[in-house]
C-alpha cells in the first residue's frame, strides 16, 4: 500500500494536494468567502459538463445556462412547493436535466455543429422569458426564495471536533458543493479515459472515420449531451441551494457565455481545465469590481462604467485572445511550458527519443 502511494505518478500527488487544499480551505477563511468559493465550485461543475460536450465530443453548446436554470428551478420547486429537503432535490435536478439534455441531443444529432451552436444560443436568450411564464410554479419575475439548511448534527460535531469552531450554514453548503465536485470530476476523469471518452474524441476528430471504426455516433453524441446536461443540472441545483433563491434574471445569456469562457480559458478537453477556468470566470468580475473603485487614479465615473461593462469587455477579449493564441487554454499553456522546460533540461537527446505528442487542437 505504502509503496503504491510512493510510486504514484506526480500528478496524483498534485491531485491530492489540491483536494486537501479545498477540504481545509474553508476552515481558515470567513464564512462569506466560503460561500463565494462554493459558487466557484458550482461553476466548475457546470463548466466540466460543458467541457465534456464541447472539449471531448466536439459539439458546441452556447446554452448551458438554460440547463443550469432547469436544474436550479427543479430543486427550488421541489423544495418550495413539495417541501422536500433541498439537499435531497439536487440528484433529482441532475437526473431530470440530464434526461432533458439526452432528449434535446436527439434532434441535435441531425444538426451540423454550427446549427447546434445557433439553436442553443437562441435557447439561452429565450430562457429568462420562458421561466417567467408559468408564474404560479416558478414565482414569475420575483422567483423563489429558499431557506438555507443548517448543518446536520454529525457535520457540526465533526467540524467542531476538528477545528474547535462552530460550522456555519455557508460552510456546510461549501462542503456539499465540494463533495459533488469531487465525485463529478472523478467521474469525468474516468469517463474520458475509457471507452466512452475515446469514442467521443474519435467522433470529434473525424466523424466518418469514427463511424467506419464501429463507433456508435448517435449513441455517444446523445450520451455526451445527456451527461453534460446532468452536470449542468447538478450545478443548477447546487446554485439554488447556495444562493438561497432563483429568479429568471440569474440565468441570462451572459451566464452561458461565462460558462464558455471558463471552459475555453481553463482548457478544453482537459480535466483540471474547468476548475481553473471556473476560478477565473467567477472571481474576475468580483475582484475587478473590488479593485477598480479602490484605485484613486481611476476617475469615479469610469470606475462606475467598469463595474457594468468590465466583465463583458474582459470576457470577450479573453475569448478572442485565447482562441487565437492559446486554443488549449491555461492547461495547454502550462503543458507547453512543461514540455519546453523538459526539453531544455534534457538537452538535445530528447529529439531522438521522440517528443511528447503535440496537444491536439480540440475546437
Amino acid at each position, binding site marked *: 500500500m505504502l509503496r503504491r502511494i510512493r510510486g504514484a505518478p506526480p500528478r496524483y500527488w498534485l491531485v491530492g494536494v489540491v483536494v486537501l487544499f479545498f477540504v481545509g480551505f474553508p476552515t481558515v477563511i470567513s464564512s462569506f468567502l466560503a460561500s463565494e468559493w462554493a459558487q466557484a465550485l458550482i461553476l466548475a461543475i457546470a463548466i466540466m459538463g460543458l467541457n465534456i460536450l*464541447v472539449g471531448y465530443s*466536439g459539439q*458546441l453548446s*452556447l446554452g448551458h445556462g438554460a440547463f443550469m436554470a432547469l436544474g436550479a428551478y427543479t430543486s427550488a420547486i421541489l423544495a418550495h412547493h413539495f417541501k422536500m429537503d433541498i439537499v435531497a432535490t439536487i440528484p433529482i435536478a441532475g437526473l431530470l436535466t440530464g434526461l432533458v439534455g439526452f432528449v434535446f441531443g436527439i*434532434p441535435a444529432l*441531425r*444538426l*451540423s*455543429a*454550427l*446549427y447546434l*451552436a*445557433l*439553436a442553443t*444560443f*437562441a*435557447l439561452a*436568450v*429565450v430562457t429568462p*422569458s*420562458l421561466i*417567467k*411564464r408559468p408564474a404560479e410554479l416558478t414565482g414569475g419575475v420575483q422567483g423563489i426564495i429558499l431557506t438555507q439548511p443548517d448543518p446536520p448534527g454529525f457535520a457540526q460535531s465533526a467540524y467542531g471536533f476538528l477545528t474547535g469552531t462552530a460550522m456555519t450554514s455557508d460552510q456546510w453548503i461549501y462542503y456539499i458543493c465540494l463533495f459533488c465536485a469531487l465525485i463529478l470530476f472523478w467521474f469525468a476523469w474516468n469517463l474520458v479515459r475509457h471507452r466512452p471518452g475515446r469514442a467521443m474524441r474519435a467522433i470529434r476528430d473525424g466523424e*466518418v472515420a469514427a463511424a467506419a471504426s464501429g463507433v456508435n455516433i448517435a449513441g455517444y453524441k446523445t450520451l455526451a449531451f445527456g451527461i453534460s446536461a446532468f452536470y449542468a443540472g447538478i450545478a443548477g441545483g447546487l446554485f439554488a441551494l447556495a444562493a438561497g433563491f432563483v429568479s429568471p434574471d440569474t440565468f441570462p*445569456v*451572459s451566464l452561458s*457565455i461565462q460558462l*464558455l469562457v471558463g471552459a*475555453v480559458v481553463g482548457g478544453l478537453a482537459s480535466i483540471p481545465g474547468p476548475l481553473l477556468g471556473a476560478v477565473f470566470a467567477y472571481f474576475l468580475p468580483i475582484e475587478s469590481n473590488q479593485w477598480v473603485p479602490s484605485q484613486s487614479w481611476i476617475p469615479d465615473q469610469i470606475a462606475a*462604467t*467598469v463595474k*457594468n*461593462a*468590465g*466583465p*463583458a*469587455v*474582459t*470576457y*470577450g*477579449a*479573453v*475569448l*478572442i485572445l485565447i*482562441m*487565437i493564441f492559446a*486554443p488549449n487554454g491555461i492547461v495547454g499553456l502550462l503543458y507547453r511550458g512543461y514540455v519546453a522546460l523538459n526539453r531544455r533540461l534534457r538537452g538535445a537527446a530528447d529529439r531522438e527519443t521522440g517528443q511528447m505528442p503535440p496537444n491536439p*487542437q480540440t*475546437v
Partner: protein
Amino acid sequence: MQAFLQQVISGIAIGGVFASLALALVLIYNAMGLVNFAQGEMAMLATFAAYALINRGMSYWIALPVTLVLAFGGGIVIQRVVIRPAEKAPILALVIITLGLATLLNGLAGFIFGYVPRSFPSAFSAQTVDLLGVFISYRDLGVIGVSGLVLLAVYLLLQRTTVGLTLRAAAHHPEASRLLGVQVSWMLALGWGLASAVGAVSGIMVAPILLLEPNMMQSIIIYAFAAAVLGGIESPLGAVLGGLIVGVTVNLAGAYLPFVGGDLQLAVGLAIIIVVLIIRPNGLFGRAAARRV
C-alpha cells in the same frame, strides 16, 4: 380583417429589419461558412455611431450614409484584426471568436455610452396614412422602403458588378480565384465590411422602435437567425423572404395567440429555428449539403 392586415403590414416592416440582419449573416456565411454571432452587436455599435453623429447636429440623411461607411470600415477592421489570425482554425473556434467579439462589443458600447436606453430619431413620422382602408404609419412604410432599397442595392452589387462577381468567386472557389489573381483574403474583408454595413441598416431602422441601448439587438439577432435558417442559410433571397415571414409570424402570434402575448414572441423565434432545423434543415431555398469524406 382590417386589424389583421395592419398586423401583417407592421410584421412586414419589422420583417424588413430582420431581413437586413439575416442578409448580413448570409453574406458572411457564404464568404467563410461561419455564422457571425457578433452581427447584431456590430449593428448596435453602428447605430450608436449614428446616434452620436445626429446628436452632434448632423442631419439624419447625411448621418445615415456616413454611418454605413463607418460600419463598412469597421467590418473590414474586425475581419483583419480578429478573424484573419484564426482563418485556418476549425469553424467552432471561429464561432467562439465571434461570440467573444459580440461580448466585447456589447461591453464596449456599455462602457462608452452606458446602459440607459436612449430614444433614437426616426426620419419618418409616426402618423398614419389610409391605404385601401388599412392604416399604415409612415414609419412602417419608411422601414419597408429603406430595407427594400438596401436589399436591392446588395443584389445589384453582387449580381451586376465586377466587385460582386469577384466577391462571389472568392467565396465559392477560393483556390481557383487565387490562381486568377483575386486577393481572396481582402475579398473576405470586403464581405465583412459589406455585411457590417447591411446589418447597420437594421440597427438604425429598429432603434426608433426599441430604444437604443447595448442589448438592443439581442432579440433581433435571434429573429435574424430564425430568418436566415428559414431561408436556407446560404441564400440571400431566402434570408429576405425568411425575414418577412418571421416578422409577420411573430407579429401575428403576439397579437392573436393569447399564450404568446408580448413576452413570449422571442420564443416564437426559437420555435421557428428548431422546427425548421428538425423538419427541413436546409431551409426553404438552401441546397442539401454534400459532405466530402
